[in-house]
């Protein structure tokens, strides 16, 4: 298992390095002079040239890249032209809110889609199956931001206990300083009122963000369960008198969970993309609002930083999935080990 993990972690580091190089190069070759944009139209040619020199824009691109990577290895993402602060600290400030939202979304996805998929497979072709089919179709076809707006409208008229903007009631006066995650920090600080309030704020954006993934993963769980259910070892288990409950969970779901988990990992990329829009709709103080502002301002260091952070998210999510698959399916870890 340790071998398997090292191998996976190493290959994911390579992915991140590749991403950093690619996004850096793309950011440098797009037209437009960052120094000019930063200084505004009124700056003199001299001032621009000075800033270019200061930012190192006159060096050859591979030198710039090298400086950037060295900085990156030390946790330095450069300075934001927009806020004049280190990009790293800007991102670290906005990150927890996004992380909390994404985490809540994934938990929601897993805890809704897999049980529903199992149910749909178990009651195949019954009304339960049909209803989940319609739900998943709706979840997949309605874009996240449309759902976000619909939910917002519904909440402001009918379900007013779910706030439609922000992350926490400002009157609560609470600073999430330990982990940055409201749900965890409120528990640490012993503030149940904050915990409940944070949940209320989290609910709608998380639903809006989770819907597409839920639909997909649910259908995949269903078909994987049905496929596994027709395998010989399930018939054998039935004939040996193993109870149906044990067969469904230990024998079928365990084997069937490989496909939905893999999809969940891949879905993560579109989840991050959707998070940008959904955060915007709900005025969620996460990395999205920062990302959108910096992109519009061509604040290159910040843009690269945001993309890299999204990449880290994706890579960590997939590493987690790989570890889970390794635990669930011995073939994932033993195949490598046997050859060694």
């Amino acid at each position, binding site marked *: 298992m340790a071998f398997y993990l090292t191998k996976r972690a190493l290959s994911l580091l390579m992915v991140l390095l590749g991403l950093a190089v690619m996004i850096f190069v793309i950011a440098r070759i797009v037209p437009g002079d960052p120094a000019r944009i930063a200084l505004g139209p009124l700056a003199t040619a001299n001032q621009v040239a000075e800033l270019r020199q200061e930012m190192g824009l006159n060096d050859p691109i591979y030198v710039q890249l090298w400086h950037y990577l060295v900085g990156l290895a030390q946790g330095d993402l450069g300075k934001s032209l927009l806020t004049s602060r280190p990009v790293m600290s800007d991102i670290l400030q906005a990150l927890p809110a996004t992380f909390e939202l994404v985490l809540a979304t994934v938990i929601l996805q897993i805890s809704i889609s897999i049980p529903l998929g199992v149910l749909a497979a178990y009651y195949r072709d019954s009304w339960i199956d049909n209803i989940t089919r319609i739900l998943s179709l709706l979840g997949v076809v309605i874009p996240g931001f449309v759902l976000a707006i619909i939910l917002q409208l519904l909440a402001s008229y009918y379900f007013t206990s779910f706030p439609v903007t922000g992350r926490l009631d400002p009157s609560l006066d609470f600073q999430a300083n330990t982990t940055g995650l409201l749900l965890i920090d409120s528990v640490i600080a012993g503030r149940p009122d904050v915990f409940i309030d944070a949940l209320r704020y989290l609910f709608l954006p998380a639903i809006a963000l989770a819907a597409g993934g839920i639909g997909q993963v649910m259908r995949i769980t269903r078909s994987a369960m049905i496929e596994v259910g027709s395998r010989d070892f399930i018939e054998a288990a039935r004939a*040996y008198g193993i109870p149906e409950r044990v067969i469904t969970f230990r024998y079928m779901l365990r084997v069937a969970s490989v496909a939905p988990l893999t999809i969940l990992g891949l879905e993560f990329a579109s989840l991050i993309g959707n998070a940008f829009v959904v955060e915007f709709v709900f005025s969620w103080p996460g990395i999205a609002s920062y990302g959108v502002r910096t992109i519009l301002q061509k604040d290159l260091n910040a843009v690269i930083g945001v993309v890299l952070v999204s990449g880290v998210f994706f890579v960590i999510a997939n590493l987690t999935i790989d570890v889970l698959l390794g635990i669930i399916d011995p073939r994932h870890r*033993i195949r490598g080990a046997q050859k060694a």
Partner: protein
Amino acid sequence: MTGEPILGISGLDISFTSYGQKSQILHDVSMHIDQGERVSLIGQSGSGKTVTMRTIIGTLPMPPAIIERGSIRFEGTELLTLDKRARNRLKGTGISIVLQDPMLSFNPLLTIGRQMDDVVRFADIRLNISRRRADRTARIHEVLRNVQLADPERICSAYPMMLSGGMRQRVLIGMALLNSPRLLIADEPGTALDVTTQQEILVLLNRLVDETGMSLMLITHNLGVVREMADRVYVMERGRIVETGTRAEIFNNPQHGYTRRLMEAVPSLYGSRVTDVTNERAEDAMIKVRDISKDFPLRSGLFNRQVGITRAVKDVELTINRGDIFGIAGESGSGKTTLAKMMLGLFDATDGAITMDKLNVHDAAGSRDFRKLVQIVYQNPGSSLNPKRTVADQLSVPLIFADFDRSTIAARIRELLELVDLPARYASMYPHELSGGQKQRVAIARALSVDPKILVLDEPTSALDVLIQNVVIDLLQRLRSELDLTYVFISHDLSLMRNFCNRVAIMFRGEICEQGETPDVFANPQHPYTRALLSAIPVLTDEEAAQKPIIEASERNAVLLSTTTLN
């Protein structure tokens, strides 16, 4: 017959519904199995054997199945009306099963020990027995030793994929025996395995029946297996029991036409029913395999470094003449498929060279000329044909590549279908509308479309029933003489090879251990592995059995891998 039989089925009618249509699958099936008796149920696929088995063990999905009429009594208890709890109590403890494919009958994610423990633990719960985990483990180890597995502890901690097919089959039998069932149902035991392993499994089953006094119901299509395993036989055709009798009655004096056809369709290994195949053409080397080897890299470690090689084919030397039907036999892993792929230019040889009709395969592979020279027919037509395209579509693909004019393609397709005895209207059908034999004929037609001179036949009949196998074999014989073809026939079925090939080569661990004219090799096998293979084949008559080569246990163990110990 004394007392009530352990299992009695009478007047069983079963129907299936699909999309509102009802069709009857079993018609008035009656049979019985006595205490300690070994009864065999034989028939082709689709004859209703599996439905019968599932009804007995209670895993028949209802719906779509409906039991219309009849009764199944087990030890005097009517199973069909028994309440669910009592029925479940019998599962694994009264009646147990060994499913066909040991590769597919395990949960791939759980250790063997865990799966076996589940079987014992839930049986204990059903029977209100309380046993500690250590006691259950002791029982599991006892059973594993009883199926001759030497190292129960290591087997228990292994995952299914770590065991060989033969070992899995043993574990599977052990799994069925964990709760000491009184009736064991074995569905095609060992048929998914190599013939030498199959023989060991049959010997083991026979011994277990003798020792435990349990009854055995053996479901199979292999008449040779029946002869070695059954006291009494039921023959099933299209959902009906058409004949029943003792083994001697069935084998010596079959009454029903279907039974007789089945018997005649089984190719003989020895005796008067064997046909010798000859090549009438003057000797003219068509395929020359010169000292060929193939290595596969073994990769491992963090950067997938190459850490070693496996030599799949070692220094093979063959000459196949124009008009030959050349058989390459061997068990799984012997390298026969690798050799065939090298002949087809799909693998590049590590050493040595192959010439096919004067073309060097290494240079010509992938060229138009080479594709027109050699074609292949795969084992399973169900997966080698594209399920989403019509027969005509599939036949036209190679024709387009071979520069056939659009206007002549339709005519050529009709011609090809006629060649393989299929009516022209089949051109517009999809593979799922065809039977297995018809699909394989389409696959043959596809291979013939570009008018090749050499056909590589990779187990072309092993996915087919024995009656259909003969039709396909006859077709191949006819095509050889009509179209002047040369066949390379790859198979593990030596009985078929005896009657279909004029020359054979036996492959053993990547090497050719023996080759020659078919009658010579079979009459006087030199290599111990050839003898081990031949002696393991289940045959139909005592006369044939007597002519099989005899092999000493020590000699046999030297050439066969052990299925009883982990290596």
